[in-house]
């Protein structure tokens, strides 16, 4: 199906109206749209009370001021990663049990009934069944809740690796 030139122009002019959020609050909200764990954002530990208290505690052990700051921020960064690790582990993508367990072949009469008001053709029913079969395959490939949480947590491995290497370096060279 091709759209007319007029329609295409109308679409383009409408798209120009959509320029994203304008207010500060809107921009702030939309900046979090694709945020998953927040580990890619730069943390600001220095202004937190935890950081200052931790620096004071470490300073009592004879580390230099620079080493204290490095160790405190590395430790807080490691905690941030492990908190995200826990959150990811405990809230995996939910399993769509209906889609996973449905019998697509046996559902053909239901599909034709659903499509009947529009005067369904056998081809439409087949297409709908194929669509559900594809969705079901994708759902099953993701596995159950344990597979999902393992896969989600696995994505955080590199953050943990970097955080612990930084902490270990800070402590040993401090």
């Amino acid at each position, binding site marked *: 199906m091709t759209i007319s030139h007029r329609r295409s122009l109308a679409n383009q002019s409408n798209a120009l109206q959509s320029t994203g959020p304008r207010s500060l609050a809107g921009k702030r909200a939309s900046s979090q749209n694709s945020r998953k764990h927040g580990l890619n954002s730069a943390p600001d530990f220095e202004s937190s009370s*935890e950081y200052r*208290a*931790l620096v004071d*505690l*470490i300073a*009592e*052990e*004879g580390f230099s001021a620079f080493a204290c700051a490095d*160790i405190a921020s590395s*430790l*807080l960064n*490691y*905690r941030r990663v*492990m*908190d995200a*690790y*826990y959150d990811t*582990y*405990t809230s995996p993508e939910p*399993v769509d*049990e209906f889609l*996973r*367990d*449905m*019998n697509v072949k*046996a559902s053909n009469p239901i599909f034709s009934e659903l499509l009947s008001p529009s005067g369904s053709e056998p081809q439409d029913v087949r297409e709908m069944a194929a669509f559900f079969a594809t969705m079901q395959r994708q759902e*099953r490939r993701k*596995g*159950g809740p*344990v*597979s999902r*949480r*393992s*896969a989600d*947590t*696995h994505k955080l*491995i590199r953050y*943990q*690796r970097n955080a*612990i*290497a930084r*902490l*270990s370096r800070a*402590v*040993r060279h401090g």
Partner: protein
Amino acid sequence: MSLEDKSKSLLPFLSSPKLLPDESEAEFQSSLQSLLSELDNPSALAVALVSQLNECLWWIRRHTVDKELLLHEAMARLLTKAGSNWMGSGNSELSVALEHYLNGSAQKDQAALIEEALIDANLTLSDLRAKAFKDAARHIKLVDDLIHRQHQTTRHLQRSIDSIDYKSRLIKRMDLELAALESKQSAKGVLSLDDKPS
């Protein structure tokens, strides 16, 4: 400051232990205390690192349980696929029944459901387990990676704790040597004063 006070004073920075609903906090704390008891008068930083080490060991336990759960999930999936009761009992119902069956805590109807499903699939329990292992290999590999990562993290933490321990021992030794030198020096001073003819 006692060991317990030190670990308590650090809690706000380390976040209180985040446990799953079926885990015991008492068990978590007792494993932390047993790790801390292996250190000789640990500093606050050492306590902080040992807390992280304890959490790592906890994660290894969780992921090891997950490996078994993944196998159970795959076993239930295979049984559902092979069974005639596709729509009647979904994967999750079968999963729960299988879990109880393998733990030996299945009710009569759950045991019957699993045995029927095994007959339908024409499999024994060990065959099913072997097939499930093959089926879930991709996911099991992910969990193995997670466990390996925790082991690596544990090693890093262990090295850091050792370096703090070594540093504190070194400082203590230097203090002792300094005190010994000072006392020697003062003894010499007294002797030389004594030697001087009055």
